[in-house]
């Protein structure tokens, strides 16, 4: 078997059949990471010793017959998840060399499963961005074309999975940071319902919107990870008490009788021609599988990015206050007083984007402006939530593109004024409304820059809040009928 591109299900089978041990798998993936990471820059930290120890434990557990869904399965984690005793940088200077004292709840759950952590993946600094280009450790590269970005902010996680360096990875999303890089790297990504998974121990960006999910090779694999990671966490008061289903066991219901909405606001000018074609083809596949396709309107869509532009920096400005050089993280070498410890440590430690958001957010929350900005934005957000609630009374799910474009060249975002804007339009309203969503590969397209390369296109499947089962079911049905998710980039063979 080609373990590099095997699914979690296949690896589970191989482990259970004693065809391969967890230690062998860990060594196999660690070797691939060492071989390919210099080119891809997907990992910030490789946790070789921990991985081998955890894999050894997993093998013993398997021998004892104590096998969970992910026992012995290797994975990578975005470097935004707190890992006890393992460097956690948020790809920032201010947390360079920072060793957490505790594990995030999701990391703890995977430890309990005896999954094997291979390393921590690259991201935009503090997840502020959608290209990994704001990382202090340099950008990651897209495995389909190393001159291009993998997307972001979870670009290290998606590049690692796409290149066969890990079967799945933990990722986070605030406004597209799972769906967009999954789309650009040609893999499947799950953006959970807000509150479905615990945020405890994940370095906060926008607390009211952050969702903790995964990227993997199939909707089925995502459903397996969802079963393990979902549920109420007593340490995260915003997690819901909604029952966790056996997501992976109930995938095969098919699409007969499913009502699928196609929102016209998600197919606007600025979407690349090939992207729109591939997504429309995917919708046709869904129709062939028995789903009813209806056009729907989401007229408030355009307000999403405006709300986001206020809410995100406001919360970021507060969430980044703890990085003050007093207890941990970067502290300036010389300061004449307390004020200078703060200003110099933070000036030296934060990147430009973090500083921009701190300034914008501080302004938006200031006395006299809070009502006009933050509170008004929250009211509009409520309207967005209601608009989705209405549409999900008519349809089961929505289908649309995950990203308006295929992967663009590193450094070219600045020349593409619509890059952020249209992408936001596709991802942000659903993120603000806390919806469940997937991105699954749906073919290839040529980039707008005219280069003769074929790059992955992503189909976005949006469900209602707590609609995990529906999005996994649709994703799985689509992947049963197509094999776009089985495509792998050239150049990453063993």
């Amino acid at each position, binding site marked *: 078997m080609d373990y590099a591109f095997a699914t979690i299900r296949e690896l589970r089978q191989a482990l259970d059949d004693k065809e391969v041990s967890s230690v062998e798998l860990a060594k196999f993936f660690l070797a691939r990471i060492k071989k390919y990471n210099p080119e891809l820059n997907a990992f910030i930290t490789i946790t070789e010793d921990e991985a081998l120890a955890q894999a050894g434990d997993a093998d013993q557990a398997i021998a004892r017959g104590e096998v969970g869904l992910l026992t012995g399965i290797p994975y990578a984690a975005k470097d*935004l*998840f*707190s890992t006890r005793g393992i460097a*956690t940088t*948020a790809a920032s200077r201010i*947390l360079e060399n*920072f060793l*957490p*004292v*505790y594990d*995030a709840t999701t990391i703890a759950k995977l430890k309990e499963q005896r999954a094997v952590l291979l390393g921590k993946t690259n991201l935009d600094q503090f997840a502020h961005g959608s290209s990994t280009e704001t990382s202090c450790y340099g950008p990651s590269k897209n495995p389909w074309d190393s001159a291009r970005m993998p997307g972001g902010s979870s670009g290290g996680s998606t590049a690692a999975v796409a290149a066969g360096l890990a079967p799945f990875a933990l990722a986070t999303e605030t406004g597209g940071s799972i769906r967009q890089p999954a789309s650009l790297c040609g893999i499947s990504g799950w953006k959970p319902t807000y509150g479905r998974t615990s*945020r*405890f*121990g*994940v*370095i*906060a960006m*926008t*607390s*009211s919107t952050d969702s903790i999910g995964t990227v993997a090779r199939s909707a089925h694999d995502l459903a397996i990870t969802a079963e393990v990671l979902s549920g109420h966490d*007593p*340490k*995260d*008061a*915003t997690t819901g008490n909604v029952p966790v289903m056996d997501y992976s066991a109930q995938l095969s219901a098919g699409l007969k009788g499913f009502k699928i909405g196609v929102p016209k606001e998600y197919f606007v000018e600025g979407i690349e021609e090939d992207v729109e074609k591939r997504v429309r083809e995917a919708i046709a596949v869904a129709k062939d599988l028995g789903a009813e396709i209806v056009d729907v309107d989401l007229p408030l869509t355009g307000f999403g990015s405006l709300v986001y532009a206020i809410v995100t920096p*406001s*919360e970021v*400005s*507060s969430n*980044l*206050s*703890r*990085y*003050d050089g*007093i*207890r*941990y993280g970067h502290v300036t070498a010389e300061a004449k007083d*307390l004020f200078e410890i*703060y200003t110099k440590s933070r000036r030296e430690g934060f990147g430009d984007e973090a500083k921009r958001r701190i300034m914008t957010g*501080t302004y938006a*929350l*200031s*006395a006299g402006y*809070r009502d006009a900005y*933050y509170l008004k934005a*929250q009211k509009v957000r409520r309207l967005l939530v209601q608009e989705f609630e209405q549409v999900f009374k008519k349809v089961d799910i929505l289908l649309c593109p995950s990203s308006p474009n295929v992967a663009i060249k590193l450094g070219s975002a600045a020349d593409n004024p619509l890059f952020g804007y249209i992408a936001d339009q596709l991802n942000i309203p659903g993120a603000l409304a806390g919806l469940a969503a997937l991105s699954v590969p749906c073919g290839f397209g040529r980039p707008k820059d005219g280069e003769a390369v074929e790059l992955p296109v992503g189909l976005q499947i949006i469900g209602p809040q707590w609609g995990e089962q529906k999005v996994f079911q649709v994703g799985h049905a689509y992947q049963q009928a197509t094999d776009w998710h089985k495509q792998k980039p050239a150049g990453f063979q063993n």
Partner: protein
Amino acid sequence: MNDLKYEPVIGLEIHVQLKTRSKMFCASANNPDEAAPNTNICEVCSGQPGSMPVANREAVKKSIMVGLALGCEIPEYSKFDRKNYFYPDLPKGYQISQYDQPLCGKGEVVLGGSKIRITRAHLEEDAGKLIHEGAGSLVDLNRAGVPLLEIVTEPDFRTPAEAKEFLQDLQNIVRYLGVSDADMEKGHLRCDANVSVRRAGEKVLPPYKVEIKNMNSFRAVEAGLDYEIKRQEEALKTGGELLNETRGWDEAKAVTVQQRIKEEAQDYRYFPEPDLPALHFEKGYIEELRRLLPELPAAKRTRFMYEFGLSKKDADVLIADKNLAGFFEQVVSEMQEWAEEEGRQDDIKKFAKLTNNWIVGDFQALLKTTNQDPQDTKITAENLAELIKMIDRGEVSGSAGKKILSVMFEKGGDPSNIAVDEGLGQVSDESEIAAVVEKIISENSSVVADYKSGKKQAIGFLVGKVMAETKGKANPQVVNKILQEKLG
């Protein structure tokens, strides 16, 4: 200099540290007195990246109980907000507090006949402590995240004594509720005051106010306010300028010292805490808490006065200490039972008064020698009641009773046994006393003659002789009666 009359306008901001098992937003122990620094801390209260708060139910419940005790409206909806500012004792760079939807809304308490309006009471987390050593400062986060209830009053106090009295009452209330030790010296109860001065009879608030901090005892609150009012009056009389400022009370020098001029309000950029869902209370829950409220000091005072006929002064002494009042009630209830058995229901107020005298007098004096709580000594309520009954029955004298009480305090035990063991039983038997009286009369013929010739006060000398002969055990009333009979 003018001769106008001025009056102060005083409002208080009081922080009550709530006694809970764990801190406000995490599982770390709530023990701010822990001596070893940074031991009761975790990833949450030390503000580690990624950590999240979870609200402490017990603290919310206790806050609402205080609100109910202060007559506050308790809204069905409340939420937490972030108050953003930088300081090394504040690990997250923001304090989780409450901005516009506090747990407790407007309230009102009656204080010595006048009404004091409560503006609000909200729940928040305490900051850590800074320890300044040499050139640097150290941070101890044991206190960081401890639940604090901030109670704000309207500017309804007209004298420092009123403010002090309110604070003492509040201390008593939170102790009755069992929500805080409320020890000012230990910082469980902290009081800042806003004070300004206006022409007597003015209705509007003065155009400035001074906040006084660092008053760490009841005495300091009164003294700090007194000083500050005089300072402000002086300034007004001499045309001096008064500013919006924060001043600190300097205990040693007995003056207030300027700390900060508040030219404009600091902007804390409050916004709803996104890590904590809003709080919704069902009416039934609030009513349940109202039912759970114990009898509060004011109600207890009234009851002691009406039910037991105590004076306000006596009742005040008892209610000032919840445990002392409780012990008093236990003893009185023993006395009531006895009174009913003896058919002496009419004497209940007399017994209550006697009980009060013993508890506030000798018993409390004994408590002070060992710093004990009334419930913790070897004297049970039953035994103390027994002692009072023995005195009432004339089995022991009052002075013997004092001796028995100190033996009970030291060793415990039944007072009648102690009376026998120590030979302190009172002799009321008339024939026994009559024999001694005969003896004294025969030995003191000249005094007897004086008495018979009209010097009635001479009987006192004879009573004293009889008492000395019986080593104080004779019942003086009986002695008096027999002497009068014998001497005709």
